[in-house]
């Protein structure tokens, strides 16, 4: 898990939810950074064996940070800036058609 550095520049606080849990993040951070800063340990379950996975590379290469954002699955959280009111959810296995219309 991650925590903020001392003396880090403060940014505007944004509210969002992860699996329905209300959390706050810093404007300018990505979805993945916000989850890590909030102590989230895993953000998806794999389609093959269903084991939990967490962000691995943070630079768009590994796809282990995939989450469902506002009903749209398969989003690379490390490339998406956090926005006020975002509804972020664990991605269970593959992206399902009903998630598109969530």
């Amino acid at each position, binding site marked *: 898990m*991650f925590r903020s550095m001392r003396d*880090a*520049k403060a940014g505007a606080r944004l509210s969002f939810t992860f699996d329905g849990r209300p959390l706050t993040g810093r404007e300018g951070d990505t979805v993945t*950074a916000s989850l*890590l800063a909030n102590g989230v340990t895993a953000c998806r379950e794999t389609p*093959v064996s269903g*084991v939990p*996975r967490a962000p691995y590379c*943070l*630079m768009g290469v590994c796809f282990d940070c995939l989450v469902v954002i506002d009903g749209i699955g398969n989003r690379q959280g490390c490339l998406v800036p956090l926005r006020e009111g975002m509804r972020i959810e664990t991605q269970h296995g593959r992206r399902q058609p009903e998630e598109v219309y969530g």
Partner: protein
Amino acid sequence: MKAVTAIDQLAESYDLVVVGAGPAGLSAAARAAELGVNVLLVDENPAPGGQIYRAVTMTPVTDRNVLGTDYWRGAEIVARFERSQASYAGSCTLWSIGPDAAVPEGGGFEIGLSLDGRARLIGARQLILATGAQERPFPIPGWTLPGVMTAGAAQIALKSAAIVPAGRTVIAGCGPLLYLLAGQLAAAGAEIVAVLDTTPRSNWLKAAAALPNFLRSPYLAKGLRLMAKARRSLRFVGGVTGLAAEGAGKLAAVRVERGGSITTIACDTLLLHQGVIPGVNLSNAAGCAHDFDTVQHCWVPRLDDWLTSSVPGIAVAGDGAGIGGAESAALRGEVAALSAAHRLGRFDARERDREAEPLRAKLVRALHGRRFLDLLYRPAPQFLAPRQDETIICRCEEVTAGQVRDTATRLGVTGPNQMKAFLRCGMGPCQGRLCGPTVVELIAEANGTTPAEVGYYRLRPPVKPVTLAELAALPQSEAAVKAVVR
């Protein structure tokens, strides 16, 4: 700089499209724009800088000592780009490169871009791919457990969000970046309980011949400073020959093999690093020829003196053209820009050569001593081709080293493309980025051949996943409509 914030703000076509906003891409785009070329720079991150200068214009890290002076130099490169007339599309993903049907005699490209959930196809007369490097895959048992990350990931988290791993942190692997990162994380207040060095001791002998050059290189003073600082304050463990991450559902400890003895270190975060390699997915999918570089031990695009690939009109600059570091990346970006500007008719060959001369001289200086580092930090064979059968090597499709080995020996599969058909490795969303090099290594070892002979995955657009909704909503060009009607 002209910021493009929505997909419909893009022009129909640009003289030059540069992909990637690290030092190479920023320098290439700035130089080309200064020469009057109509240039677009696209980058999938929200802010310019690439990974090395990640978030340099907006980082929440206030103490400048934490990231060091080299990092802050990136601000000058970004500032030069911002002063130029280039267009810049951040948070924009390039997912395809193809021939431009609108240019009947060929020579132009049609590229697919996505921004904010909407896609478009636009034209580019010339392309410079500056997509940089990625960390070399470092598969060990348990590396898919939450709590295990790349060392670069921790650095990105630090630069872009000013967050550090909480709890006991272990850094493991090989390469100069390992010392840099350990120093940065320690300065940022992380609790680093051990730095596990997997550099094979025998590498020193192999690297010795390249030492005289290294002693005159700019790397030396910097490297020694970093190592001394890290070693002074942190617990270093050298000669590590085996690693495994342990835990149920999340990381709890790392198992360390050293010589014949085994120890276990309890930890909350394990950061892995085994050097960096060029990210070849885009250049490969664009049809550029690649060769296996036996010194850097990775695939690199085949390029001429002007960094032009085997596909006319496509150049590759920066670490994507071979690992050389930030300074050389910026210089190579400029060289590629001069060449592209020449091909676009901005100036004659003589003028291009004259402009390139001082850049080439600086490049030689910047790369001086590189060979020593490449030889010294060449990964040990057991980390390139994992010995334990249960080690997952394809994180997307959860394919193990044992499965690949078995398929290579028992079924006689000799190449990565055939392996893909048998096991699905390389067919998940990352498209081989994290298994490709290991699959090649395992096949080479099983068949007693070399990575160069085994070859690499043949990749195809889309290079990054694009949704059906985006494709279906693409604005239709006349040529596209005709293609379907026929």
